[in-house]
């Protein structure tokens, strides 16, 4: 397949580097299922799906209320999302359905590219909690569509832990009246990422939250592009982005809040923060606000810097070695984005992922390594 990919001249892709994708896509997948998979214990025989290279491994899955088959997912005109086929996984929860507990989905990529759509439809007052974990080293490309009816609640957690390769996630969400869409994403592996989100608050008093911690080292790149659109009054939204870049890595976040003319009493909050662990790392932060209503409250903040030198010295003067002090401060920084994960086991897993990122990190002061 010939890949027609957007170039950096396109504003929405200015910080992207998709140049490796054709090569990754050309690699043949190995197809082996890893012996150890990062399932979270403690959820009994709750629903779980294992996809290897985009194909369901039925004998290691327990679909529960999830169907595998044709799904309706938008937007098909997105540069990466348009590559997905018609068949994927679908979770539909009716208003009388008992909650499924945590739905666990693991996506393994053993090489090459795989493209898969998903559809989550929550009827009035329905609830769902989904944890997706991405591992492997190929290109995993996903399009996910979420439709939440009145009073529905979705908690979506994603761990991007691949050793290498590329993960691209494109989300479209419609959040109905009084419904709540909460997502938390952690990129703590070696894969480059592109995260696209378009969350529409289509009902009154809807709530959306998007939190993400992006950790990058080496020449890795994380690139996120999210818009939360308030279409109706009394909605609220919250975005928390925490980027950490070491070595020559780049984290880029473009985060947007749109408030339509009718969306009075909107309460929108955006916090974009980045820490560079070395002077050669790059953090791009682009908070955007577009407000057409006149009675709204929108707070936004963006900061990029190094670790607080006064705090580092304070820790060191009490006996904490420099690497440990840097780790302590960076973990605290990242925790902002993960502390809202409601399920304690899931939250613990995220913190453990952060921990293992640090234990393999080069958290050494740049002076020591003689970096510029």
């Amino acid at each position: 397949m010939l890949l027609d990919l957007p170039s950096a001249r396109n504003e929405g892709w200015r910080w992207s580097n998709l140049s490796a994708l054709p090569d990754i896509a050309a690699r043949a997948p190995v197809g082996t299922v890893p012996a150890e998979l990062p399932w979270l214990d403690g959820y009994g025989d709750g629903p779980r799906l294992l996809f290897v290279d985009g194909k369901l491994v039925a004998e290691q899955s327990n679909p529960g209320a999830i169907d595998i088959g044709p799904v309706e997912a938008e937007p098909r005109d997105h540069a990466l999302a348009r590559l997905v086929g018609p068949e994927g996984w679908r979770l539909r929860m009716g208003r009388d359905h008992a909650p499924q507990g945590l739905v666990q989905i693991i996506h393994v990529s053993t090489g090459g590219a795989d493209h898969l759509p998903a559809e989550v439809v929550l009827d009035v007052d329905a609830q769902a909690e989904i944890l997706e974990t991405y591992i492997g080293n190929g290109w995993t490309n996903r399009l996910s569509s979420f439709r939440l009816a009145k009073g529905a609640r979705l908690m979506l957690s994603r761990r991007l832990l691949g050793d290498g390769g590329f993960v691209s996630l494109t989300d479209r969400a419609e959040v109905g009246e009084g419904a709540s869409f909460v997502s938390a994403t952690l990129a703590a592996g070696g894969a480059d990422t592109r995260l696209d989100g378009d969350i529409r608050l289509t009902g009154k008093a809807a709530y959306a939250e998007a939190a993400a911690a992006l950790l990058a080292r080496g020449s890795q790149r994380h690139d996120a592009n999210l818009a939360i659109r308030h279409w109706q009054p009394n909605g609220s939204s919250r975005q928390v982005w925490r980027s950490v870049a070491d070595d020559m890595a780049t984290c880029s976040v473009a985060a947007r809040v749109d408030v339509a003319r009718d969306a009075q009493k909107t309460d929108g909050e955006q916090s974009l923060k980045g820490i560079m662990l070395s002077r050669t790392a790059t953090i791009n932060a682009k908070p955007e606000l577009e407000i057409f209503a006149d009675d709204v409250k929108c707070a936004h903040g963006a900061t990029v810097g190094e670790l607080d030198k006064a705090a580092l010295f304070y820790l060191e003067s009490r006996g904490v070695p420099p690497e440990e002090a840097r780790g302590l401060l960076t973990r605290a920084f990242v925790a902002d984005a993960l502390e809202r994960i409601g399920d304690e086991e899931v939250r613990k897993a995220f913190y453990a992922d952060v921990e293992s990122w640090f234990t393999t990190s080069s958290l050494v002061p740049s002076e020591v390594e003689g970096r510029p």
Partner: protein
Amino acid sequence: MLKIENLHATVDGKEILKGISLAIAPGEIHAIMGPNGSGKSTLSYVLAGRPGYEVTAGSATFDGKDLLALEPHERAAAGIFLGFQYPVEIPGVSNVQFLRTALNAQRRARGQLDLSAGDFLRLSREQADKLGLSMDMMKRHVNVGFSGGEKKRNEMVQMGIIDPRLAILDETDSGLDIDALRVVGDGINRIMRKPDKAVLLITHYQRLLDIVRPDFVHVLAGGRIVRSGGPELAHELEREGYAEIAA
């Protein structure tokens, strides 16, 4: 214990310390007084190893070892504690987590085993109680939302837990009301007034020295120690002001 000889130091290329000599033996409490800008805080930072404070001449030894060659955390492990004039707030890191990390890092550096979680909590509860801080405050993020007085008391709780041999206390009395001053002063006596320990107390005021009675008082002015004496020197300063003494 601590021996400073002809210490010169610059900050941003400007010479602040212009030849300080001072010897502190175990069991002694030394007070350093002096007008604003005389170099008191700079001296404390230089001894603790703060980046940006450059020693250009002279020496400082601790137990005969070159203090200036050690990294800040190594100085702490050697037994030096700096009480900050403005304790730093660290969002996201709890006091308990911070202190346990610090204490165990020091213990490891000295070849000791880590303190267990239970033992550590017992120790921090005991120290916090004595300074009138609740365990709830100890579980909060380091100094975040603490009042000025609470921050200073927290410094003393930390000192009690870490149990250093030499405490350099930079205006630990500033921002304290009379009752808090008493609590903090008693804390210094309780933790540090021991035959094998010593204190370098940097202060502007006599009030703290009424509680923590110094054995020696030094007047720092213009980056030099211009006078040294016994406790009576502090009273003289209180009566006559720095201008008279430092002249």
